[in-house]
């Protein structure tokens, strides 16, 4: 038997997205060419841009297609930082919460190392919630020196949903641009870019100006993502060339992948209400059953205000890699949730930021659900779990 419970890593491609991809493959033509072949390819891309704009609540011109979430995040952080510093050399601070994804952490650390960025770290609490008071204090203290604020909409490891509009309002109030990493949120939380801008009082380059998404997290073919960039944002491009996409992201547009992502977004959006309710019910039942089966297991992240597809527990005395191996041997694919280096599970930096010690941070399992998840799959996992935990306890920890 097989149970795939790692949708937060990558979710299976939706059939509609596969069809959109293969349909697009038969077209000849570069979307930037002026002849009819080119125009046909361009039509696919612009249809996709409109679809995606509808789903995320922005204008089509504000959708910049990229190669995925990591590129979107790099473009947002490096692009906003360089534009801010170019305008005012004193604006070299980046406000960043401690429990961000590595795509963010490694990028801001690189900017610190190579381009003189000063990092203002914002702590998270025991449930992974951003300390909004600390963030507000930071903006009040250093607002005129801040190049940008960046944050995860929802934590990819522990699922905690952040107070996005509240933080967007703080950014707007302090005249600082905000980037939101919505890679894990898309498809699980309704997103409306323009509405957040309006409600939080964003004007020009202040407040929410950029938002990252990644196609393979919601059923597109992999290798495609988008950065929503407000038309009023000040942002420098990373990739130079043919000047495509407002000059913010040069390079021949990948019409098949872009079509695939847009169709996946439409299908996800259309099914949202029903799917959200279904996932919530599966998620909460799973959390309850894990607690009943393994009373020592501790739920990580906000118990209520969390992604509908995220279950994350620490298993005291167990090491994640043992659990992962044992479950994998029984056909169940889950994740430690944390980043890997050469396949080695590192202690989760998210759990460390939430106040756990190294041993606890190395004992986590993330079970993430998605559009193909069934109760039968979860039962496979739940059947395998107690024995896996018992054996992992015997194997002990090497951390």
């Amino acid at each position, binding site marked *: 038997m097989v149970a795939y419970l790692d949708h937060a890593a990558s979710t299976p491609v939706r059939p509609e997205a596969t069809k959109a991809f293969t349909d697009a493959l038969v077209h000849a033509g570069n979307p930037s060419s002026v002849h009819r072949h080119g125009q046909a390819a361009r039509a696919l891309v612009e249809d996709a841009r409109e679809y995606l704009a509808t789903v995320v609540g922005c204008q089509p011109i504000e959708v910049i297609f990229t190669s995925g979430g990591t590129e979107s995040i790099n473009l947002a952080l490096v692009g906003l930082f360089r534009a801010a510093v170019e305008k005012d050399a004193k604006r070299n601070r980046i406000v960043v919460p401690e429990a961000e994804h590595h795509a963010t952490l490694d990028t801001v650390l690189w900017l610190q190392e190579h381009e003189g960025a000063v990092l203002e770290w914002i702590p998270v609490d025991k449930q992974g919630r951003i300390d909004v008071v600390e963030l507000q204090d930071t903006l009040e203290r250093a607002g005129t020196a801040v190049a940008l604020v960046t944050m995860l909409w929802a934590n990819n490891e522990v699922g905690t949903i952040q107070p996005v509009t509240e933080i967007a309002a703080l950014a707007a109030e302090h005249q600082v641009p905000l980037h939101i990493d919505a890679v894990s949120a898309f498809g699980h939380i309704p997103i409306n870019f323009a509405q957040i801008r309006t409600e939080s009082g964003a004007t020009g380059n202040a407040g929410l100006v950029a938002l990252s998404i990644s196609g393979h997290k919601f059923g597109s073919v992999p290798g495609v993502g988008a950065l929503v960039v407000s038309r009023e944002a000040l942002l420098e491009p990373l990739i130079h060339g043919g000047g495509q996409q407002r000059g913010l992201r040069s390079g021949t547009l990948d019409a098949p992948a872009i079509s695939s992502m847009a169709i996946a977004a439409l299908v996800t959006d259309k099914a949202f209400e029903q799917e959200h309710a279904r996932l919530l019910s599966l998620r909460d039942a799973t959390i309850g059953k894990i607690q009943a089966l393994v009373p020592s297991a501790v739920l990580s992240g906000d118990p209520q205000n969390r992604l509908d597809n995220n279950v994350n527990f620490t298993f005291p005395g167990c090491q994640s*890699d043992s659990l992962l*191996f044992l479950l994998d041997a029984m056909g169940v694919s889950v994740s430690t949730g944390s980043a890997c280096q*050469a*396949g080695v599970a590192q202690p989760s930096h998210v759990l460390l930021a939430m106040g756990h010690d190294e041993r606890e941070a190395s004992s986590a399992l993330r079970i993430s659900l998605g559009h193909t998840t069934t109760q039968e799959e979860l039962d496979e996992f739940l059947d395998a779990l107690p024995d896996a935990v018992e054996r992992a306890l015997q194997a002990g920890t090497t951390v």
Partner: protein
Amino acid sequence: MSGGVDSAVAAARAVEAGHDVVGVHLALSRMPGTLRTGARGCCTIEDSMDAQRAATMLGIPYYVWDFSERFKSDVVDDFIAEYQAGRTPNPCMRCNEKIKFAALMEKAIALGFDAVCTGHYANVVPDVNGNLELHRASAWAKDQSYVLGVLTSDQLAHAMFPLGDTPSKDLIRAEAAERGLSVAQKPDSHDICFIPDGDTRGWLADRVGITEGDIVDTEGNKLGTHEGTPGFTIGQRKGLHIGTPAPDGLPRFVLEIRPKTNTVVVGPKEALDIIEIAGTSFTWCGEPQENPENEFDVEVQIRAHADPVPAVALLVGGELVVRPANPLNSVAAGQTAVIYVGTRVLGQFTIARTVSDLNVVATA
């Protein structure tokens, strides 16, 4: 699976023998290098990818298990501490003793495995009563039984060495190529895996610091100064920079390193000829010798690639004493002596005391 050709072929043979095999790569550093450099064949991300590729080709699952903390405390820190104490440790042996056939084996057994299978060249065979014995590999040149001398009966019972009866490494490479394993022509690894550039002396100096000290003769007379004890080896002749020649005009060699006084002792070549070695820290590999208080005939080997020397051994008051038929050369305290009977590994001990032909006793 280190990412090298030996473990890849060992895994292939285990699969072919019908075992349910899982590939495991040991992460021994939290900050592995990206690319392989020089002659090393493990421990970088590239090596881990090589191991994974081999596992994929064999159709077996593959995982990386993190033993970096244990490796640091049991092997790397131990290596530094031993050098600081003036002894010459063998980290590969220590890794077999503490990591591969201890931490890894315990974890594997707890997770439901029966054995740890490696690409070591050695053989585990039962004696007439069914007790397991460790024997040298068929190919003398590749034999690695020395570094496995620390294994006990329990560990032998859970160890598999499918390469032990292969006549040569070339055949292993040919077999790897035939099986389509991309590591077939990957160079062998040498030296110490955690010292990436092979500069043991520089590596130790960075960690223990070095201070100038005296070079003295066996009488304690100062003959010169050295820049720091790390990196000196027993038997070393070059690089001593002693101005005054010996009275007899013959070259002098490092006889002993005394870290506590930061002193290097030098003397004539004959003082390196060791006629007795002994240590209290010993283990039997498999069944113990019967009545070890009575002298028994063995062969003794004091380095991974040294020739074995006929000797007699006996246990005296808790100390295993070995007297070679011909003097051993350049023996350092801290080295492991493995004793054999024929091809069988009988046991091993850490050399704590040596007696030279000139009756100079050194202890550490």
